[in-house]
């Protein structure tokens, strides 16, 4: 009884693997059939758009047939040496590991690689690099910052704050007017990490530099090391705690992401620490609600303002693919400028190429000047390996745990992980 239940995930994984292997084998039947390219894409919102593109592409020529793969297990595919031929998905630390171990092919000779904005390409290198290769091409970037209710700000005669003191003044004025300044959704740990933690830390600390030093220190990280969570992040996280304790809704602990979108759409708070993905959800309830975005100010200098970005979609072709040429051709098709622009406009993403169309949506246009000036950072919570329960720790802080002891725990976890890696 015990054994079978405990091993279930692995049994399922094994049988799925067998099924998938079988499916791919039959897919490779010899003959005059066109060469198949399996295209891995898992972002649910993006699937309808790319499904149409695939249909068009397959109809336009007879040599290659692109097959959408929206469900296979990526790690298992790489493990078996049978990964998809082309991937277009979220780029994060987990994905970076495939690159770091040389599992992704070099694309630097492709004309598309020349078009990528260098500062956006640099984001890829922040998690991991492979010497001499450009194996990951960013396709779409999500910029995230404070979402605010423009109507409420106007009614209260408020300007977008550009320094920390101005932010506190805005919060105090909203509070005095009986308006909840921030809507918190602490029941979902990721929302604490993505919004509250990443924005406060990114507004004050150079995230990429911090993690570069942390990675160099490795097992040395602790109370005495030159940088550490408990030393470097104490100030921004204390401020995060202050904002949470004073300016968030009282019932934030019981509210989740869905509740937050609904409440914010109904005008129950003036500001919301979420990404552009929430805008579409809010619009489902209140399509006409006027919203804007601004970077969370954490210092006294407006020059320090930065927005949080993440590479929402990035393309890569595995070394192990047997259809690299065909995959490259389809990659070029996907990277046509009008194809990229149409996608980014629909998904509220920012373009990654030098010739990308500028964003115009009023809800995200507030971040444009920062994006164009490369005043951006990748979320601090995203640079910690998933094996450390960062989001849960941060949720603990939001619900009352001590900032100091939680950051100390993070340091200890970091050092312990470095020891066994």
């Amino acid at each position, binding site marked *: 009884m015990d054994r079978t239940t405990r091993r279930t995930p692995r049994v399922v994984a094994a049988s799925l693997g067998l099924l998938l292997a079988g499916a791919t084998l039959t897919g490779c039947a010899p003959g005059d059939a066109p060469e198949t390219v399996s295209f891995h894409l898992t972002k649910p919102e993006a699937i309808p758009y790319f499904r149409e593109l695939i249909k068009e592409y397959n109809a336009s020529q007879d040599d290659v047939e692109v097959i959408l793969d929206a469900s296979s297990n990526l790690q298992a595919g790489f493990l078996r040496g049978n990964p998809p031929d082309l991937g277009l998905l979220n780029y994060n630390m987990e994905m970076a590991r495939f690159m770091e171990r040389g599992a992704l092919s070099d694309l630097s000779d492709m004309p598309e690689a020349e078009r990528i904005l260098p500062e956006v390409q640099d984001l890829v290198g922040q998690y991991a690099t492979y010497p001499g290769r450009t194996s990951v091409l960013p396709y779409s970037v999500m910029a995230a910052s404070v979402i605010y209710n423009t109507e409420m700000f106007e009614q209260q005669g408020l300007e977008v704050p550009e320094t920390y003191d101005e932010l506190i003044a805005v919060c105090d004025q909203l509070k005095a007017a009986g308006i909840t300044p921030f809507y918190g959704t602490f029941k979902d*740990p990721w929302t604490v990490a993505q919004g509250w933690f990443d924005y406060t830390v990114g507004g004050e600390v150079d995230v990429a530099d911090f993690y570069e030093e942390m990675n160099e220190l490795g097992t040395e990280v602790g109370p005495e090391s030159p940088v550490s969570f408990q030393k470097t992040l104490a100030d921004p996280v204390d401020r995060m705690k202050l904002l949470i304790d004073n300016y968030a809704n009282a019932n934030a602990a019981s509210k989740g992401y869905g509740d937050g979108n609904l409440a914010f759409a109904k005008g129950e708070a003036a500001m919301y620490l979420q990404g552009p993905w929430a805008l579409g959800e809010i619009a489902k309830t209140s399509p006409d609600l006027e919203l804007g975005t601004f970077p969370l100010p954490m210092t006294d200098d407006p020059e320090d303002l930065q927005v949080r970005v993440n590479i929402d979609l990035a393309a890569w072709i595995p070394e192990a693919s047997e259809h690299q040429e065909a995959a490259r051709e389809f990659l070029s098709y996907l990277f046509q400028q009008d194809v990229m622009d149409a996608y980014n406009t629909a998904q509220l993403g920012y373009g990654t190429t030098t010739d990308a169309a500028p964003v115009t949506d009023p809800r995200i246009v507030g971040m444009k000047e920062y994006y164009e000036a490369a005043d951006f950072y990748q979320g601090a919570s995203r640079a910690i390996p998933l094996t450390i329960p960062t989001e849960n720790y941060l949720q603990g802080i939001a619900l009352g745990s001590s900032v100091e002891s939680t950051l100390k725990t993070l340091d200890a976890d970091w050092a312990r992980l470095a020891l066994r890696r």
Partner: protein
Amino acid sequence: MTTTTVPRRPRRKVEGIYYAFLVPSLLLFTLAITVPAIIGIFFSFTNSIGFGEWEIVGLINYIAMFSDPAILSSYLFTFGFAAVTVVLVNAIAFLLAVGLTAKIRLKTALRTVFVIPMVVSGIIIAYVFNFLFSNSLPAFGQATGIGVLSESILANPDLAWIGIVIVTAWQAIPGTLLIYIAGLLAVPGDVYEAADLDGASKWQQLLRITLPLVVGYVIINVLLGFKNFLNAYDVIVGLTNGGPGTATRSIPMTIVTGFTGGDYAYQMANATMFFVIVVVISLLQLRITRGRNAI
């Protein structure tokens, strides 16, 4: 010599058929469970992240594990949770079974009602209760002015485990109940008649006659229940996802992060440790109970 070969022959024929029954599942069990388990134990001595290059690192994973507060607290939580739940589930299920085997009306209908939670998937139950705990219960708490209930108990690091115990118990009671009903029906009626003649009260009958006669079933339920609750996963994912903070992270949840978080070798060490502990507990339980010729 001849005396031993003669009776063996017919036995062997029968054995052959039994082996034929056993071989398919034995083969599957070996391929799908034993082999991967051995591979997993092997990888717990490496620094593998699940794919790519790796090297043998000896006991480092085990050493790092014993100083990892996240893992230690997950063991504490899981064993505490399993102990509380197993007591609660067995107490309630036993009393329900006594009631449902007594001479009452609507016995069949009631039995059906009590078994319903068993057929609903754990994750669905968890999401439904999540809504109840986060919205309905706080609304009730605010309306009645009960301070503790006015905020979701799942958001309270000290109380969240109670929510998990309640939901797990709600889901686990039917299975336990069915085993107890079977046990109680197997108790012959004449012992109660004899007890009645001797003037034993209903309470005395329950404690002195029913309980000793079904003690084997109690042991089965406690054993199976405890081991199932150690594997708590889906209900916790649906209710708290290990939160608030890390207050309700169970051992299996920590092990799964080895796959999702690229910490394969380390969590294989954790899984190996967990496996050893469960085996030791099972052996101890068997040894303790064997004396009572229960199973």
